[in-house]
Structure formats: C-alpha cells, structure tokens
C-alpha cells in the first residue's frame, strides 16, 4: 500500500510563503515572450465563422442586389476597396493577375467614406461609378462582381478597419482568413495561397 502524502502544517506554510514568488515568476515568463511578440499582429475574430448575412446592391446597376447565398458555391476572395484608397491602386494589378492566371474569383466590396446621412451628406453614386470605371480601366479590373455597401452594414459585420482588406471564403461561406493591408506576391505565397490551394 502506498501512503498518500498529506502536506503537514510546515510544508503548507512553505507553499503559501513562496506563492507570491511563483506567481511573479510566471508573470515574468509571460512578459519575456510578450516582448518579442509582434504588437501589430491582430488575428481576426472572424476566422472560422460564417460570412454574415446581407442584402446589398450591385455597384454598377440599380435594382440588382446580392445576398450571402447568391455568392456561395465556389471559394472566392472578398476584397474591400475604394477609389480613395491609395494602397488599393498598388494591389489592383496583382489581383488582376491572380484572376487572369489562376482563375481566382474575387468579389469587390466597395467602401465609400463620404456617406454620412446623420450629417446630411449623401454619397453621389453616379460619381462613384464614374471614378470606379476610371480607376479600374487604369489599374486593372480583378472583380467578378462589385457590391456597394453605402451604410457599411456588411463592412461593420466584417470588422473592417480600413482598405484594402481581403477575406478568403470557402464554397460553404466560411471565412478562412482575414488579411489586413495589401495583397502582393509575398502575402499571396506565404499567407493566402497555402489556404487557397487546399480549397
């Protein structure tokens, strides 16, 4: 029979006395690793969750609208962009290349900054369309379709912090990746392609 060891009074007080030291040592270890962590790394809360439901109009054509279900069926990239976004200009040619060479389906989610009905400012949609056509003809058009989210319904649900941002979404509508910032060759090869190629 092995006898269970029960700590006697002295041992107990030893543990209690050293408890603050042990607790502090744990904190120091955490701090040590935190010092080397990338403070700008922000893993998205949305990864692994389904794409939110929405009902939004087409950017170009009045009366045409899209919903979550109308996009599903094959995997695609959802790309948040705007004509005001400088980085998007650098990204458009690469995205267009992805579409042409690898057949990647890219859905544009247009982000307008001006629209602010509470202050009586309404977006000038014909003007936006004109700017969009100009910009895409200049830098390339990677988009399968373009969705206009004036009231930022889907943008808020997707926790968009700015433009450009890109989401990888599978055929069932699950968000696999949320990338903040430009998509370029390095980002594609290191971050997006490993996920995309498994789909």
């Amino acid at each position, binding site marked *: 029979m092995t006898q269970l060891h029960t700590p006697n009074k002295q041992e107990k007080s030893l543990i209690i006395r050293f408890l*603050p*030291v042990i607790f502090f040592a744990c904190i120091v270890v955490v701090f040590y690793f935190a*010092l080397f962590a990338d403070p*700008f790394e922000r893993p998205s809360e949305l990864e692994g969750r389904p794409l939110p439901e929405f009902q939004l109009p087409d950017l170009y054509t009045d009366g045409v609208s899209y919903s979550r279900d109308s996009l599903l069926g094959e995997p695609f990239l959802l790309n948040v962009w705007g004509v005001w976004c400088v980085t998007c200009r650098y990204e458009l040619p690469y995205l267009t290349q992805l579409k042409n060479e690898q057949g990647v389906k890219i859905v544009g989610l247009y982000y307008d900054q001006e629209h602010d009905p509470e202050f009586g400012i309404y977006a000038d949609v014909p003007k936006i369309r004109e700017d969009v056509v100009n910009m895409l003809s200049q830098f390339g058009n990677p988009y399968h379709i373009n969705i206009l989210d004036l009231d930022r319904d889907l943008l808020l649900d997707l926790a968009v912090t700015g433009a450009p941002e890109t989401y990888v979404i599978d055929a069932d509508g699950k968000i696999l990746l949320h990338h903040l910032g430009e998509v370029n060759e390095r980002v594609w090869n290191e971050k997006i392609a490993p996920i995309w190629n498994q789909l």
Partner: protein
Amino acid sequence: MEIHHYIPELGNLALTFAFGFALALSIVPFWGVRKNNHPIMELAPNLVVGQFIMTAISFGCLVYAFATDDFSVINVAQNSTSLLPFEYKIAASWGSHEGSILLWLLMQSCWNIGFAVFSKQLPKDTRTLVLVVLGWISVGFYAYVIIASNPFERTLPYFPVDGRDLNPLLQDPGMIFHPPMLYLGYVGMSVPFSFAIAALILGRLDTSWAKWSRPWTLLGISCLTMGITLGSWWAYSELGWGGWWFWDPSENAAFMPWLVAVALFHSLIATEKRGVFVSWTLFLAIAAFSFSLLGTFLVRSGVIVSVHAFANDPERGIFILGLLAFVIGGSLTLYAMRITHVQKDRTQYAAISRETTLLMNNMLFIAATIVVLIGTLFPMLHKQAGLGAISVGQPFFDQVFSWLLIPFSFVLGVAPMMRWKQDNLNRLFKSNIYVFVVSLILGLAWVLGQFGQWNFTAIVSASLGCWITLISLRELFKTAQKLGWAKIPKAHWGMIIGHIGFAVTLAGGGMATQFTDERAVKMHIGDKVELSGYTFHLKDIEATYDSNYEGHGARIEVLKGNQPVGSILSEKRFYTVQKTVMTEAGVDVGFTRDLYVSLGTQFDDGSWGVRLYVKHYVRWLWAGGILIAIGLIIAIADKRYRRKTGKLQERAA
C-alpha cells in the same frame, strides 16, 4: 568651442558620477552594518547627498539642452522644436522615454535625501540599511539609463536644424505636472519597501518599522493620488470626447500601485496601533513598490501599449524586465524565507471590531487590484496562448468595480467609528440605522429631484456618498465635543477629509457616468442648439494660433433661458511640425455641471461639425481626488509622529 557646447557631456558625466555614488551607497554602508562599524554607516547619508546633487545636475543639463534647442542631442531633436512654447520645452525634458526615466531617478534621489534628512532619530542600523536598499534600487535604474536609454546621446556629426516637436497630446498644462507627480508617487513607495526589506534583513520584525514608515507611505500616496487625478483631468480636456477614465493599460499601471498603497497604509494603522497583521503589512509594503515597478515596465517596455513598442529594440524591455525580476523576485524570496521569524499577533480581536473592518478594507482593495491586474494582463496572456487578440475594456471593469464599491463604501462609512478589539453589533446598528435611512432618502431625493430618473447606479452612489459624508461629519463633531476643536489630532482631520474626498469622487463618478447629455450637430455661424436646458449659440469661428500650431476656434455663447452662462472657445489645432490635427475641447466649468464643446471639421457648405455635452458633476471626481491628497498631507503633520520621534531621541540619548 565654448563651454555651453559641452553641457550634454557634463550631464552624462554627472549621471555617471551619480551611478558611482549609488553603487558606493549600495555596498559600503551595507558592509558597515554587517561589521557594526558606525563611521562607515555614517557614510550613507553623505553618499545620498552626492547622488542627489549629481542627479540634479544631470537633469538640469537635460533641461538646459531642451531650453536652448540643442538639436544635436537626439532626445531634443525628437521631442522638441524651436517654435515650441517655452514651458513645453521644459516639460518635453520628461516627455520622452529617456527623459522620463531620468526624471524617475531625480525623484528617487529626492526621496533618498528626504529620508536621509528626516530619519536621524531612527536606530542607526535601520536607517543605514533603508538607505542601502534605496541605493540598490537606484543602481539598477542608473545602469539602465546609462547603458540602454541615455538621454544625452548626440546626433553628431550631422544634426538637424530643427526638432520634430513634442507630441501635441502632451502639450497641455496637465502634462507638465502629471508625470513628475505620478513618478514622485511611484518612487515614494520605495521608502516603505526599503523599510520592509531592512526589517526582514535585520530580522527586527516587530511593529516599530510600521510606525516609522507610515508618514512616508502617506506622502507617497498623496503624490500618487495627485498624479492620477491630474492624468484624468488631462485626458478629459485633451482627448476631446469628454471621457475621464478609460481603463487603459497605462492608467491601470498607475491605479494598481495606488490601490495596494492605500491598502498598505490602512493595514499599517492596525499594525502600528494593535500589533496585528504584521506579516501581511510587510507583504503589502513589498507589493506596493512592486506594482509601481510593474506599472513602469508595462508602460515603458511596450509589452502592452503597441504604439510605444520596442519591436525593433527589445534590449530595453529585457533590461527593465531583468531589473524587475531582480528587485521584485529578490524581495519576495527574501520575504518568503524570513517571514517565519515574524512575531505573532500581539493582541486578539473579535469578529466585530475595527481590526476586522480594516481587514475587509484590505481584502476589497486587493480584490480590486487583482481585477485590474487580470484585466490588464489577460489580453496579453490570451494572445500568448495563441487564442487571438482580445481587449478587456470599460464594461468589464465598470461592472466588477460597481460591485466592489458597494460593500467597500458601506464598510468605509462604519469603520472609523468602530472600536478596536471588540465592538457591539447592536450598538452599531442602533447608532447608524438612522444615518443609513437618511442617506438613502438624500440619495433618492438628489437623483430624482435633479434628474427625475430611476437610475440605480446613480442613486446607490449618491446615497453611499451621503452615508460616508454624514458619518464622517458626525465622527468629527463627536471628537470635537470630546477634545475640543483645537485638539483634534491632525491624523483624524486627515482621515475625515480623505474619506469625504472619496465620497465626493464616488457621488461625482456615479452621476457623471450616468447623466451625460450629448449631441452631435452641424452648425453654421449664428445657429442655436438646445441641450438639456442650455442654448448653445455659435457666435463666430476665430483663427487661433501659437508659435507651433494654427487653427480655428469656435466661439460659443451659452444661455440658460435668457441668462448668459458662459462663453466657450473650442479649438481644432493643426500642429505644423508634427502635421497632426488636435482637438482642444472648450469647457465651461461649473459646480454641478460642465458644458463641454468639441469642434469637428468644416463641411463643404461652410458649416461645422460640433459635439456638445452637458456633463453632470464631473468636477467632483477631481475635487475628491484633491481632497484625498490634502487629507493625506494633513495626516503627515500629526503631532504623534513628532512626539514619538522625540521619545526615540531621548531613548537614543
């Protein structure tokens, strides 16, 4: 070349000498204590004086470099500009990381010298050892400043013609005084800490150290309270949306030492007067300074605040962490090893006694500290564990704190009138039930009368505020009846004022969080907007400027009915060097309400976006903080400390 070109080098040299003094202080007198050699022990105060003078010269050189726009010093080039108003040039000396650590050292040497001057009546070995421990702490920080964070580094041979300006957020009167006050408070905790360490080393774990370290603890907390109050006031006037406490990691970093320090000094009372909680009080003395160091580490190492991150320079973070591990880890280990020698509680106390209420005070303060610590560190732990980034914010803290504050405030009301050793629940109930009912009625009448809303949080905080104030005042009158007004001890005055200060903050905080009227509007010049009984009339948009910014100011006249109440100037400033736009909120200060105007941007049609707030009782928050700080200072002046020291001198003689 003339002498003034070498001022930064002189500063660096003085810093090195100060390091030398601190090093000598931490070794030589310690050896004297071990050998019981009095002449060598006598060296300690002299070394402290040397350390102080050298640090003051060094800091003076840094201020001189800022005042004379010496952009060949990296620190000046990055944190000042020739057009910066003079007072902010001086304040910019501690606006950077390097400068603020040097300020920390200046504050540390102020405390060291203060202690050396006012501790002559203590036993020689205790006094020397406390100074030695203060020296140990200083050595680490001097080494850090000299090696990893030197404020005197030059940009030579190619130096810029002008500097990059001080962060406009820091160009506010609150920011001139806030960091020195806060640091004075942080570092002040090193004195009770050193007392505790000295007591542990000497094995003299009786209660005399509690008596000696009490005034120092009071002074430290007073500075800390003022520092936090100023910080909150700065955030309110400078960040432009009327908030006054954000549960931001850098605020939590200052709040945690405050909580532990207040717990410490209440526990010190019980230890000094009744000889109880000795080992617990020792632990708190170590914890209070540990949290000060931890706070500095959190803010200054970039582990939490990503904007200040040392992603490219983890050397500094590692250095401070090593320092932290050494000081805190070392002292906690010492505590664990020596605390068994502590004398057992001298006296017994019953469940209903003042001892118990002080214990409850401590439990609630420590619970609050743990809540803040977890809330501050949890996001980091969560991320380290690979679970993703999260933030712990206002809702969590607000909820937990409101539930801690209710029992705390209730006990705070009763505690000062409780008897030591044993009290009678029946007596307490009988003498307080009327006050309690009256407080509830007053709170209800206050909130319902002024705002006409059944707001639970506001009613509870107003009632508890009345509860604490009424009992404190009754206590004061009772004492006056017994002793006469002139003979009321200063410590008693301090307690009454401090507790009422807390009540004022509590009531103000409850009202300010619950009742803020707010409107975001678009206004043309001449427009009038109504908000909770006030008419805001945009009279004019003026051009405003100073040497380093230009901007617009909205001149808003406020009317109540037809009576003019005040005229507010709210600015939008563009700082030309940093190319940053800042909102300078305009505030009409009032006893029961602030009118707060924040100017937005101009629209194409010439109108301006304006945010208007009526914030109720927001001044009370800071008034309470100031009262607490004043109460603490008055308590230090208590005759008891002087009389006791007199006795000690007799005994020594």
